[in-house]
């Protein structure tokens, strides 16, 4: 019954998406013909259709969640991805730890944000709103079709299975509870930005008001993407046991590219909102951001690229997503090519203005995006000529640094500039401060030791940027600084913190690989690590060997660490559970490997791998700060918005009252 309710809800939601699409489009047609006359009676349905659709899609997702919670083995998806002996939390998270379930989550979030847009957004011109909802319905319809026709999550087995085959052990981790849903919300939020951009392009209403409507969606999506990538990076760091935090793997890149596009979009939409400039550029980025999230889905699901993530891939599904990609992105870009020249150019600005700095960084972000895209797709390109290559850090790191370094420099200075026109002389003090910081850090590190060029530059930029992030607050009354500005300061500071972590990790990490027997001690980064014993342990669905490590620093009290090499039995797979000691200035990372024969005395030896990673945690603290900055920015904008709405309402009431008394102005001035 559960599965059937879910399936029916999905079909109904798909039907409502059709209604939403048609109703929105009809609203446009009649208005265009009659020149702003009465709306088509069908036009009314777009908003309610979006809202009811949201409820239905969420219902479908809850049904699947329930089926996983009770391990309903008559449903194929549950039988192939779950197991009755799995811990309850992982039964739930297993709902989206597979292709069908994750696509259902995607669709549910998509419908939910469509419903929210339809229900809450009243600022846009009605025509633009109709066009937006129509596009949103069209996008949703494609994903419903994908789900229902090629990846039905509610498919029944003819005979219920006796036991499920379990979830990939790597995914049996709290990381799965957080990482995919946040990324999905981010991806889907970009679809709303995309629909809004299309709506504005169709009705030629690329205005600051439109930008103000679009901004919270972009910001929201961007916050979730930031958080999702940060969480995913930390998850990979401690779960894979390789000691790395970013591998330039195609699937990681697939999440990074929408983030880069969204970051650029976020800044350009702010320029549009504040200064009415960068109109076509904002629309272009709106399309680009969503196309990157769709491209990510395509690369991940079609299996055209090889990745450590090894999703259940299926070329047929790949074809389906490619068709959707062609339809939406091809369509949007064609519309852009046709319409963009009819959008009037925005306001002008000089080369030394805040707009110019933002444009420069937008271009740099786009260039980094192009570098990542090229690196990710290059193997695909050469494979067409039968050459197999794999592209890794030796390409990505320096190539992206070429654009990232000037970007960070401009990022330090940009917020200090005034809108429209400014002179460097006005911010002389700030400029010299930043330059002095950069030079002193580079020379200091150069004296201390011999390090690679990129980490050294990274450290210097991190320090310079960290200080520069707070300079916009100089000379202002802190209590009166708008919340959104605090958001910017915090996010920029977060970038500096993360950059510091990255540079420090790559410059100062120490690594030690040794075969040790019980009682032996290894030293790394000032820690003494003693292997006390190696014992077998068992969990609910795995067995493991667990090493007991006594770790002490400078002869202090020992802390116990227990890294494990686990063997799951359903499905059979080995994972390595790293153990970490976190200090304020870094992490000790320990992994136990295979048995490594016996030593001279006949004691069993084990492979032990240790890393001391100074300030590595700053990478994720920085990520969290960036996301928090985004949250503050949204809060600030919403606060201003609500205040303005209240003021408008009060003003209108007052005018009403005046008019009633016969004293008011004939036509009320539009409130700002």
């Amino acid at each position, binding site marked *: 019954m559960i599965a059937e309710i879910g399936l029916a809800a999905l079909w109904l939601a798909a039907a409502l998406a059709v209604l939403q699409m048609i109703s929105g489009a009809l609203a446009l047609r009649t208005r265009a013909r009659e020149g702003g006359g009465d709306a088509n009676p069908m036009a009314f349905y777009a908003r309610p259709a979006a809202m009811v659709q949201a409820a239905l899609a969420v219902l479908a997702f809850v049904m699947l969640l329930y089926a996983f919670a009770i391990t309903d083995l008559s449903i194929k998806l549950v039988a192939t991805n779950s197991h009755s002996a799995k811990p309850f939390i992982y039964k739930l998270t297993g709902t989206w730890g597979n292709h069908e379930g994750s696509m259902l989550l995607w669709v549910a979030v998509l419908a939910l944000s469509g419903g929210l847009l339809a229900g809450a957004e009243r600022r846009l011109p009605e025509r633009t709103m109709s066009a937006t909802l129509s596009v949103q319905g069209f996008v949703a319809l494609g994903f419903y079709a994908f789900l229902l026709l090629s990846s039905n999550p509610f498919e029944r087995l003819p005979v219920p299975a006796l036991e499920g085959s379990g979830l990939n052990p790597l995914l049996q981790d709290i990381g799965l509870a957080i990482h995919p849903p946040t990324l999905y919300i981010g991806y889907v939020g970009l679809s709303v930005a995309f629909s809004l951009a299309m709506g504005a392009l169709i009705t030629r209403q690329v205005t600051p008001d439109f930008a103000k409507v679009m901004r919270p969606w972009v910001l929201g999506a961007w916050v979730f993407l930031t958080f999702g990538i940060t969480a995913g990076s930390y998850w990979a760091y401690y779960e894979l046991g390789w000691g790395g935090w970013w591998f330039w793997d195609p699937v990681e890149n697939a999440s990074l590219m929408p983030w880069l596009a969204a970051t650029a979009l976020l800044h350009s939409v702010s320029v549009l909102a504040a200064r009415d400039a960068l109109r076509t550029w904002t629309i272009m980025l709106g399309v680009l951001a969503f196309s990157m999230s769709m491209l990510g889905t*395509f690369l991940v699901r079609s299996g055209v690229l090889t990745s450590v993530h090894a999703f259940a891939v299926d*070329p047929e599904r790949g074809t389906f997503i490619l068709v959707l990609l*062609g339809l939406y992105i*091809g369509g949007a*870009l*064609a519309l*852009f090519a046709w319409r*963009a020249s009819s959008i009037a150019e925005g306001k002008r600005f000089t080369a030394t203005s805040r707009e110019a700095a933002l444009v420069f960084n937008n271009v740099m972000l786009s260039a980094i995006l192009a570098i990542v895209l090229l690196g990710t797709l290059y193997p*695909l390109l050469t494979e*067409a000529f039968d050459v197999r290559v794999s592209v890794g850090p030796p390409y990505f790191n320096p190539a992206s640094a070429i654009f990232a370094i000037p970007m960070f420099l401009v990022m330090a200075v940009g917020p200090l500039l005034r809108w429209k026109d400014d002179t460097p002389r006005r911010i002389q003090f700030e400029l010299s401060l930043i330059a002095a910081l950069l030079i002193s850090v580079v020379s200091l590190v150069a004296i201390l030791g011999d390090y690679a060029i990129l980490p050294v530059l990274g450290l210097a930029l991190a320090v310079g940027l960290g200080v520069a992030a707070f300079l916009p607050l100089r000379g202002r009354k802190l209590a009166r600084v708008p919340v959104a500005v605090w958001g910017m300061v915090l996010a920029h500071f977060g970038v500096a913190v993360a950059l510091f972590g990255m540079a420090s990790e790559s410059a100062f990490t120490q690594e030690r690989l040794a075969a040790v027997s019980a009682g032996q001690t290894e030293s790394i980064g000032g820690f003494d690590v003693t292997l006390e014993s190696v014992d077998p342990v068992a969990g609910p669905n795995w067995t493991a060997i667990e090493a007991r490590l006594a770790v002490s620093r400078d002869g202090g009290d020992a802390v116990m660490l227990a890294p494990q090499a686990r063997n799951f039995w359903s499905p059979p797979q080995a994972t390595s559970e790293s153990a970490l000691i976190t200090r304020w200035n870094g992490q000790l990372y320990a992994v136990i490997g295979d048995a490594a024969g016996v030593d001279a005395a006949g004691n069993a030896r084990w492979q032990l791998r240790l890393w001391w990673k100074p300030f590595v945690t700053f990478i994720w603290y920085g990520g969290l700060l960036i996301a928090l900055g985004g949250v503050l920015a949204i809060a600030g904008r919403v606060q201003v918005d609500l205040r303005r709405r209240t003021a408008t309402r009060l003003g209108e009431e007052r005018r009403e009252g005046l008019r009633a008394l016969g004293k008011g102005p004939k036509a009320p001035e539009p409130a700002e």
Partner: protein
Amino acid sequence: MKRLAYIVPLALFLFLAGLFAFQLTQPKDEFVKSTMIGKPLPNFALDPAAPGLAGASRADFMNGEPKLLNIWASWCVPCIAEAPQLEALAEEGVDIVGVAIRDRPEDVARFLERYGNPYSRVGADEISELQLEIGSSGVPETFVIDGKGVIRYQHIGDIRADDVPTLLEELEKAS
């Protein structure tokens, strides 16, 4: 000019979409081919994998007769699936040299007792040394070695019934 700039994204996208479409239609080859094909076997001498068996060395491949070199292990399930095909090849008169990867003598003996022994020799490769040197990335894999010890052909995965004629043909070519 400006108009043209607006068309660039579309053109780029169409190019990428075309590339994806092309790649989707290509059969996906998941196997890692050895780069050692056409090259002579490296020097090696492996101890017998179980008591009563003959060990394997490079010299065994130099007598002018083409042979099969079968990489397998008692812990490998597809190796059980390919056992009947190896048996059939042995009955055709093919000389098969086995190399047991990361195995224990008692397990090897038990496996051969249960699923048959098509091998003339079985060497023990405890740390995958030979396996890596000849460019094999998994178990089971089967190589055709000609009479001068040169690797001629690589079969990845278990040998199915319809792979037997191909292997016989490759052996024919190598002689």
